[in-house]
């Protein structure tokens, strides 16, 4: 379970997260929607400790993320993350991209790491691209590669930071399908997204962020059909 308690985050004078309280339980799919600059991506970075925080607490399975004593590298193995820019390692083949972290972080043998990588690449539908370099893959394929790379660490949670925002429109579908697949398999997911259809169909809950505040959270039917806050209403009216 991921617990976020009274989280405050500043970038200099900018108060980007203003007291967020949020729990995500095992098996849940939470979508976070909201306009740019609302702090939703920053929240993801705070969850896996890529950003520090100024106040409050983030706990992953009871471990405090921002405690100096926490082994953050160990904790991050539980938290797979997929970024807007897929960031595939350009000097490695698809297979090596996925096998690298299991090999060096988990100290798996070459063969073990390779078979995990193969399994995860097949999982995301890239079984025929094992030896391709990222430069030979489309954006959608690279993003699925990034998903496979995160899955190879066998995480318990997956964080998606606008995973489809940088893709050409015709490539969005294949990545969303992969995310749907993971949700169906019972993966716990937090998805920062602009894909309203996806968040409505796949999420158990949807959270709406506005200027660093979580204005509203609830089941998709509630958020999309009967939003309570004025800001949510406005936002949804604009994206439709």
């Amino acid at each position, binding site marked *: 379970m991921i617990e976020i308690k009274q989280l405050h985050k500043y970038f200099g004078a900018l108060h980007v997260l203003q007291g967020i309280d949020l729990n995500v339980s095992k098996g849940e799919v939470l979508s976070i929607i909201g306009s740019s600059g609302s702090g939703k991506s920053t929240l993801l970075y705070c969850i896996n400790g*890529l950003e520090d925080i100024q106040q409050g607490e983030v706990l992953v399975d009871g471990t405090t993320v921002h405690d100096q004593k926490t082994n953050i590298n160990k904790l*991050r*193995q539980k938290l797979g*993350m997929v*970024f807007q820019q897929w960031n595939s390692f*350009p000097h490695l083949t698809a297979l090596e991209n996925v096998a690298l*972290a299991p090999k060096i*972080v*988990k100290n798996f043998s070459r063969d073990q790491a390779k078979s995990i990588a193969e399994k995860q690449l097949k999982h995301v539908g890239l079984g025929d691209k094992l030896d391709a370099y990222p430069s030979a893959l489309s954006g959608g394929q690279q993003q699925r590669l990034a998903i496979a790379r995160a899955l190879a*660490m066998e995480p318990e949670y997956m964080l998606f930071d606008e995973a489809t925002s940088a893709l050409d429109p015709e490539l969005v579908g294949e990545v969303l399908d992969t995310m749907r697949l993971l949700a169906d398999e019972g993966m716990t997911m937090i998805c920062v997204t602009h894909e309203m259809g996806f968040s409505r169909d796949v999420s158990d809950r949807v959270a709406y962020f506005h200027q660093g505040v979580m204005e509203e959270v609830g089941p998709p039917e509630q958020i999309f059909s009967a939003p309570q806050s004025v800001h949510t209403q406005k936002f949804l009216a604009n994206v439709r």
Partner: protein
Amino acid sequence: MSNSASFFTDFQATDLLFLGEAAGRTLGISLVSISIGTALGIFFGWSLQASKWFAQATIGTVLDAFRSVPLIIQLILFYNFFPIIGWKMGPFAAGAFVLSIYTAALVANVVRGGIEAVGEPMRRAARSLGMSYWQDLRYVVWPIGLRAVFPSWVGVALSVIKDSALVSVLGYMELLRASQILITRTQEPFIILACAGAFYFALSYPLSKYSQKLEESWTS
């Protein structure tokens, strides 16, 4: 025993040998300087990138000085400065010392550029997989950054081979110094400088050719 007079008439072959030996010294001092300078430069470049403010104020300032003062002045200053502080240094040691720091100053900037070329998002992606800071440096930043700035590094190495000619002012018997001696004796500057140039080319060409091959293998 040695029949120098008869060899003297057949001067081309022996003089080439003489130049060849000198070219070996040029190669030696260049290899030492490039190796030490590159190792130091990697460390300095990483420091400059990792702790921007502190390293810039300390290492950065020193390296700026080495980059900005002409090499020939550095060589003469240090060669005469070492005995003052009680270090006995021959022309080779003093030359290699100055060339190494000079190389390090150039390589540090190349390395910093290489690390910056990898970019923060890529490094965050690596860290998000559970890699430690050092694993990220070793397995992600190093190979990607190396490919980005390798041509610049080759440029530095090639220029150090050529700049090593300046060590001749300390009396070190490298290629240029040897050529000057031969010119004085034979009064044939054109032929001898052409030979020396050919030797420099022979030292540099394999490096630039090899680096081209390496780059090609990376892009495939």
